[in-house]
């Protein structure tokens, strides 16, 4: 089938402002949208620029705005988007070129919530024990691939780029609710600040955008409750 992609383009070396370009390519309904982007790049216009790597939804490189929603181009199939597709860079991130956005601020926010296991006890000679139930408590957050689809879909971020954003909170949740971790108080203190969890207005765009099916809003609410009650064991 023929598919027409309307792509928002911008090259800072040449363009004063972004513009829309249209390309029509041959594609199969079960092709990935990423395949169509590659077809354009490899056969029509080599200057079209986007990130990609694993091509099956686990590396998080190719998050972009597809028909108005943040998706991974390698997880969306042509049959899901139809014959006319609109592709833009994610909102809420500075654009570097075409569909490539600057992810550095996003990773700095991730770093700000101390995304690593904090322990003060001596390590045992073998593994620390953790029951399957304790392990399940933080499972959802461990699925995060840091693609930015949630953060880039959040109106609170669009209005305030300094906000820490959903992805960082999901990763804080992953440690706050890990029975082995001893840094809960430090993280809750960070997330209780002005640009912490409270800028979340429970809009649910993040949950809808997550390509890994993480219930992002729910995890954010759990962190809010942990801050209010000062205890990660409150549910």
């Amino acid at each position, binding site marked *: 089938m023929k598919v027409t992609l309307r792509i928002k383009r911008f090259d800072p070396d040449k363009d004063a402002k972004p513009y829309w370009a249209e390309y029509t390519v041959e594609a199969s309904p079960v092709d990935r949208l990423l395949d169509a982007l590659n077809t354009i*790049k490899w056969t029509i216009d080599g200057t079209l620029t986007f990130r990609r790597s694993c091509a099956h939804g686990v590396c998080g490189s190719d998050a972009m705005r597809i028909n108005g929603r943040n998706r991974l181009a390698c997880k969306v199939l042509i049959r899901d988007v139809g014959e006319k597709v609109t592709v833009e860079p994610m909102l809420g991130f500075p654009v570097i070129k075409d569909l490539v956005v600057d992810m550095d601020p996003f990773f700095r926010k991730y770093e700000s919530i101390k*995304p*690593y296991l904090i322990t003060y006890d001596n390590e045992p000679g073998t593994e620390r024990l953790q029951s399957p139930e304790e*392990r399940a408590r933080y499972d959802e957050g461990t699925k995060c691939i840091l693609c930015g689809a949630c953060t880039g879909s959040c109106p609170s971020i669009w209005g305030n780029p300094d906000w820490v954003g959903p992805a960082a909170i999901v990763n804080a949740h992953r440690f706050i609710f890990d029975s082995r971790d001893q840094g809960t108080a430090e993280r809750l203190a960070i997330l209780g600040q002005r640009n912490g969890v409270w800028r979340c207005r429970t809009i649910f765009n993040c949950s809808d955008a997550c390509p890994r099916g993480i219930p992002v809003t729910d995890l954010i609410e759990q962190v809010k409750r942990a801050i209010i009650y000062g205890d990660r064991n409150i549910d």
Partner: protein
Amino acid sequence: MYQKFDVVIVGAGGAGLMAAMQLPNASVAVLSKVYPTRSHTGAAQGGVAAALGNLEEDHWKWHMYDTIKGGDYLVDQPAAEILARDAIDAIYELEHRGLPFNRTPDGRIDQRRFGGHTRNYGEAPVRRSCYAADRTGHMLLQTMYQNAIKNQVRFFNEFLALDLLINEGRACGVVALEIRTGEIHTFHAKAVLFATGGYGRAWRVTSNAFACMGDGMAIAYRRGIPLEDMEMYQFHPTGLYKVGVLLSEGARGEGARLLNGKGEYFMERYMPTLKDLAPRDIVSRCIIKEIKEGRGVNGEDYVYLDLRHLGEKVITEKLPDITEFARNYLGVEPIREPVPIQPTAHYAMGGIPTDNDGRVVIDSRWTPLPGFYAAGEVACVSVHGANRLGTNSLVDLIVFGRRAGKHMAKFITENDHVPLPPHHEDFAREMVDHLLSSKGGESAARIRNELQGEMLENVFVERHEKGLQHAMETIAGLQEAYKKVQLQDKGKTFNTELVEAIELGFLLDCAAATVHGALARKESRGAHYRLDYPERDDVNWLKHTLIYKGDGACDARLDYKDVILIDDPIFKPKERKY
């Protein structure tokens, strides 16, 4: 731009990050052409092996034996001993660093069965693979990256390495392209580690990411460093049909079985003891045989992976990701339907030769190139020999990434920087300038596409002289065409067309080395199966191939290196049965 560090690490997957972890008191730069969490380590699914014995009796020596036998005896046996012994501590270290392993009811790390891992020297499958659902690599990569943040490692993200600098007989730096700005940078260092991964994109059907273009291997090769055992390339038995995306061996570890078009679970016919859990080289060959003899599904070139009898609970809890891949890319519901699969290009057993401390060695006498290290898939220690066992790649990363890091920590205290060679950026600049200014009219995409088709046709699970000759001629032609590649994007900012073209050059070199090794090795061993020489030949071929780049683009000189055996009858090469 010029910058000076104690250590430069190229690649931010498991091996690179594990090495960086060992250097808390040094100035370290980690260069990665993608953001670190995009590295291909993150795509590993099934697990990481260690003889913890959490669920049943297990010993590191059994793991060592399985590794050696799995590698069809082309394994350097002392390296396999280190792998199996060190794996245990390395797993505990990862757990201490936060890796969220699945747990047993009593809270210990859960373990599952995996191909070729057995108890008591081949008796029956053993639970040795530590895992985190079917995203173990993702968890490992995240954990390593998180610890790198904790240790304030300095990252240079989206920097593509172009050249290795050597002077006064020592490695002394790396030249790289900053993708975002198009600037060339020199990183001057006392020690350089390559942890750049594999080159699975040389085949059309592959489990590998677009990033797996053989960068590190080709850069070293161009600098006169040999590549070892490149003919030993693994084709994973269960890639999603046509798409190539991996369906973890963990599925078979949980009990999934291979089914042919006649409704037969055929592996029990070939390998009565381990059946579907035989090593990957064997299972891939059996699949191809079934297809060739007309027992593919509907006469097509695929068979099924059947998970149905595992039940919804096991599938959802232990194999969620691969189930979603089948649903999303093939529209198949694994709980109710068998999943179409075919072998897919997966892993390079070969690579840059190193000793057990990750030091690169450049000839058959194990002469090191001081200051140059390699670890992970880019390296050939050799622990995987002619066929890697499932879960041993993650073990390799953490064990030998750690050893390389520790050795570098010592090396940089005992050695100073050597000066950079004269005109040190010329080679890299010429490469970039040539591509940006070329008017040859050739398309990089066309060359890459033809290469991938040729490799799938003639350098796949089954090989023979005529096919390999054909591949050699094709690659030689593509190497010529490559000189005429012309780009449409001449810009400085984030020029991914330029990046892809540079990577294609790397890929062509790796493919050429693979075919050189495969043509020369006139026997069948592990993943290298020659229809015209179907038997293993220990008298003539129990040795490693070393391939040196020749003068012409596609020329090579071959040498050989002995396999290191241990004086213990249990590890003596014998016929491989499962």
